[in-house]
Each structure stands twice: as structure tokens, then as C-alpha cells.
């Protein structure tokens, strides 16, 4: 993890909130944040997650950081890594959705969005991400 991220642990005190708790609006622990090098937040996880989910969240956060900064090819790599390396993780539907978004921005071909919709409806029909992708059902393949 240290090869990719600068890891930080910040202890919370509820009777006297720390400056970091105030700065990042921490209302429960554990809270995991992925920040870019400028300190901007790109992903947040509130509550305990098991180790495989945790690693998937880190990669998803890294992908979202790339996406937010318009580094689409890098974002594609991270979202693909989440899906391929953590197939049982709870964040897979979100990673599939953002993979479609990154594919669209990377190529300006909307078929990536439609593929994301098809995958979500086929594999995660109960997921909110399948509903969020609903408008892409109209995109022809």
C-alpha cells in the first residue's frame, strides 16, 4: 500500500474533536478517505470493511481520483483492477458504473456506458448502480 499511498492514521476524540475531524467532517469511525496529493477528497468509506473490501475501496478511490482529474486511462486501469482482482467486493457495481464513465470519457464512445448498464442489470439487478445506469439502456450497441 505504501508504494501507492501515503498512509495516515488520525485518532479521534469525541469529547474534544481534533482539527482533522473538523476539517474532514468526521462523524463516525472508522472513516477511510482517499485524498489526492493536494488534500482533495475523492472517496469515503464510513464503517468497518473487511480486508478484501478495503483493498477494493482503495483502488476504487484511486480510480475516482484519476477520473476527477480527467486522467481517464489511469482511471480505467484502477476500475478494471477492482473488478478483476476483487470480484466478491461490495464495491463492484460502483466500479462497473465508473468503468463505463471512464470508457466514455477516454474514447467519447457511449457504448462503454451501455456495456456498464448491461453488466449491472445482468449481474447486480438490485444495485442502485443498475438504476443509476438506467438512462444508458437507450444507447445502441
Amino acid at each position, binding site marked *: *500500500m*505504501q508504494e*501507492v*499511498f*501515503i*498512509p*495516515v*492514521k*488520525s*485518532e*479521534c*476524540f*469525541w469529547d474534544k474533536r481534533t482539527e*482533522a*475531524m473538523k*476539517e*474532514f467532517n*468526521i462523524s463516525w*469511525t*472508522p*472513516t*477511510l*478517505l*482517499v*485524498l*489526492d*496529493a*493536494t*488534500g482533495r477528497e*475523492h472517496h469515503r468509506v464510513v464503517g468497518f470493511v473487511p480486508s478484501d473490501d478495503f483493498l477494493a475501496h*482503495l483502488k476504487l*478511490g*484511486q480510480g475516482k*481520483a484519476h477520473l476527477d482529474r480527467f486522467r481517464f486511462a489511469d482511471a480505467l486501469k484502477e476500475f478494471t483492477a477492482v473488478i478483476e482482482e476483487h470480484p466478491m467486493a461490495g464495491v463492484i457495481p460502483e466500479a462497473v458504473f465508473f468503468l463505463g464513465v471512464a470508457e466514455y470519457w477516454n474514447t467519447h464512445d457511449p457504448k462503454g456506458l451501455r456495456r456498464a448498464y448491461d453488466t449491472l442489470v445482468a449481474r447486480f439487478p438490485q444495485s442502485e448502480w443498475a438504476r443509476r445506469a438506467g438512462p444508458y439502456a437507450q444507447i445502441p450497441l
Partner: protein
Amino acid sequence: MAEIKWEKDVQAALALAQKAHKPVYLDFWFEG
């Protein structure tokens, strides 16, 4: 797996992140 060397100070970590061009993983925890 190598032991993680955690930073404790957020601002110090952000300075390191800018220097190394790396993102930050920030873990808020409570010793309950």
C-alpha cells in the same frame, strides 16, 4: 507483507504526498 509505516499528522502526510506525487489514504479511528 511489510509493516505499514503510518503517518500520524495529516498536514505532514499531505506535504509528503505533494513531494512524492502520491495520494493519501487517511484512516480516522477511535480507541473505544
